């Protein structure tokens, strides 16, 4: 027992899901298993409302924790030492005490031969006795363990009110010892909500928006509009990289790459310049919806936020929204400030990639003064000028889409 060989994984909201609870638990087990498969050999089980991940062989602790921190539904990660039953029996109090001392030596580097001059750290033992056949009750176990720890390790002192270390001893189908809880991402397990189509650009916002919706259990599909020769292969690769970074949390993402150049040029030539961006965005929404319906997605996701740019004023959003006929548009960042979005983006690791300086198709042909208060009837009248051409070009763009699968293990290394 030289090291942690297990994790106890805490989850929150699943607990309240009534009869569907097992569906959520199974999804979480799958998610945890998938994440840990990438870093080692683990057995993931859910027993009596506790999720365990036990290592079958040595593993990198940091890699395993990082992987678990990307599994939605995980609220807390407790590195643990577990002691199985021998002859169906839990260890007696002597053996248990010895195991606890070794836990402290391993986890905190305390030494039995410490001189006692070192600053002490306080602890408290909390025992949970689920197996009521254990000969001592939980208070007795906690007291006995506390005494053994104090006797063995001079660097410890007891503080039952504000301990530095809250040490858990659980007597269940096995013994669990743990004292740390590393926060997980929270949310709901992937695959428990439905599938949604993310409008993914090379910017900061859309990857965060995808992350946020995926966090509620949704699976993602994505669409990227590129505009060669105005945008480059590197710009496209950047979006694929962003897709892979989000996929580290959300699972594999099918990315639809749609060539938007002809549509953009048609709008540019025939519609008023100051309406270019808003009409363009309506076209994008329309294409995204078609692709969504075709691919069993039940919603669209955008990174829009009120007032961030001219095309995201409330008036513009209303006009953009009206281009979507049958699906809800999820805009998780709608009330976020830019800095808040950047903070999340940094936390989930997409920021560094998002700020790479490649042109994307929203930044070419930008009017000096785009409309900020568009009226739907006016916009639609102008769209009608190119209605047939647009319908044909849209059809062609969808027919000629390229699909790339973004996988988390292909994400760029973080600097």
């Amino acid at each position: 027992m030289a090291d942690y060989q297990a994790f106890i994984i805490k989850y929150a909201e699943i607990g309240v899901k009534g009869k569907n609870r097992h569906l959520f638990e199974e999804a979480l087990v799958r998610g945890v298993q998938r994440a840990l498969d990438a870093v080692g050999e683990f057995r993931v089980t859910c027993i009596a409302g506790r999720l365990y991940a036990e290592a079958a062989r040595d593993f990198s602790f940091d890699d395993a924790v990082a992987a678990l921190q990307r599994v939605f539904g995980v609220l807390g990660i407790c590195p643990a030492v577990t002691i199985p039953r021998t002859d169906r029996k839990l260890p007696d109090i002597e053996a248990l005490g010895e195991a606890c001392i070794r836990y402290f030596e391993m986890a905190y580097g305390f030494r039995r031969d410490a001189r006692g001059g070192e600053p002490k750290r306080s602890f408290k033992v909390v025992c949970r006795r689920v197996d009521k056949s254990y000969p001592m009750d939980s208070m007795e176990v906690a007291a006995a363990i506390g005494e053994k720890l104090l006797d063995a390790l001079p660097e410890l002192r007891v503080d039952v009110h504000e301990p530095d270390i809250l040490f858990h001893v659980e007597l269940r189908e096995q013994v669990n010892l743990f004292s740390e809880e590393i926060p997980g991402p929270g949310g709901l397990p992937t695959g428990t909500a439905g599938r949604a189509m993310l409008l993914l650009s090379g910017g900061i916002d859309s990857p965060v928006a995808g992350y946020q919706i995926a966090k509620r259990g949704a699976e993602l599909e994505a669409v990227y509009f590129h505009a060669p020769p105005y945008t480059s292969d590197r710009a496209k690769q950047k979006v694929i990289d962003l897709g892979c970074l989000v996929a580290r949390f959300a699972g594999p993402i099918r990315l639809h790459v749609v060539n938007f150049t002809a549509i953009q040029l048609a709008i540019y030539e025939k519609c008023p310049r100051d309406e270019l961006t808003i009409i363009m965005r309506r076209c994008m929404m329309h294409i995204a919806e078609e692709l969504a319906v075709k691919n069993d997605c039940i919603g669209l996701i955008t990174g829009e936020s009120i007032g961030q740019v001219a095309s995201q004023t409330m008036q513009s959003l209303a006009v953009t929204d009206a281009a979507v006929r049958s699906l809800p548009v999820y805009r998780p960042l709608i009330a976020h400030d830019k800095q808040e979005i950047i903070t999340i983006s940094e936390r989930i690791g997409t920021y560094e990639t998002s700020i790479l300086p490649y042109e994307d198709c929203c930044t070419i042909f930008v009017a000096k003064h785009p409309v900020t208060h568009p009226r739907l009837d006016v916009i639609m009248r102008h769209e009608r000028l190119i209605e047939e051409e647009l319908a044909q070009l849209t059809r062609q763009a969808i027919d000629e889409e390229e699909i790339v699968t973004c996988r988390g293990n292909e994400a760029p290394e973080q600097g």
Partner: protein
Amino acid sequence: MIQAGEIYLDNAATTRCDDEVLAAMDAAFRVDFGNPSSMHRKGYEAEQLMKNAQKTLAGTLGVSPAEILFTSGGTESDNLAILGCARANARRGRHLVTTAIEHAAVAKTMEALAEEGFEVTVLPVDDRGLVDPQAAAGAVREDTVLVSVMAVNNEIGAVQDLRAIGRAIRAKNRAVLFHTDAVQAYGKVPVDVRECGIDLLSVSGHKFHGPKGTGFLYVKKGTKIRPILFGGGQQNGLRSGTDNVPGAVGLAAAAQKAIDGQRQFAGRLIGLRDAFIREITEQMTDVRINGPAGCSAEEMHRGEQAAPHIVSLSVPGVRAEVLLHALEDAHIYVSAGSACSSHAAKKTPGTATLRAIGLPEDCLASTIRLSLSRDTTEEELRETAAALGEIVPRLRRYR
């Protein structure tokens, strides 16, 4: 091979490695793989390869083998020449002279020395990108240690009159050291180090079908210079680091071929280049050829002052990057500005060189560079001219 159907016109960025060069390197990798510093026979044999390469390179410049120092390429050669000489001669003076159109490997090194307390004078160039030898001499002072002037500009192909510059600066100060970044010149235009009074000359292997990561610095015997890399003391302590034997072998093979073919290269390419320039200027309105190659014969003796392999083309109304990607769709590869600086912020349009020649505002962000190699054919250039003639008007519709 460059793939069928591809037209590679970015040879000033890098060239395809020559098959004979690769074959020569192959043996040095697999058979004579020893470390020249080793005392046994395997080391001795590798050392001989280095010496032969050194001899070959010295021969291409008409200098002595001991004056050739192997480096990792143009950047290291420039850094070593400038840092090494400035520091070694700092007691004599702390003033340096360079030009406004140098490659970043020179310009940034000068900046670094300015931060160390050296004083740097930057010479302007005229609208063709040429340095006035008298102005160069005028900038030289008693305490000037080094003058660095690139032989051929990488963006606009301006060929400096190094002979006149060398003589003028020496007339002013006999002790001043003269360095030239000849990365775009070597094998393309003749450079006579004796005639020009050059003390230090930088060369990069991959610009003439040699391997990447190779290059050399010519250091005239007796030049006071300090190393910038420290370690095992290879190459007389001036450039520590295990000798790159296959690299040196490949570099020498490529250099010999380039120098042997230089006259023919220049003759053929100047013809191709001028025909190409004629074709595109006839085909498109409102375009501009930058640098000496864009001047008419009456204005100057173009053959003497424009590099044979570089065409700088401004197309107002079309962003260089967009034109580059449109050409890429036609499998034609060119560069926008200089490949090395494409990542630089796009806040200030154009490059230092383009600004230094006073290019009009509407040309700065609309300039591409096409650079030829000995493999470039007339047919490829005709196709490129046709592609430009088709693409440029199309892109200009959406300014």
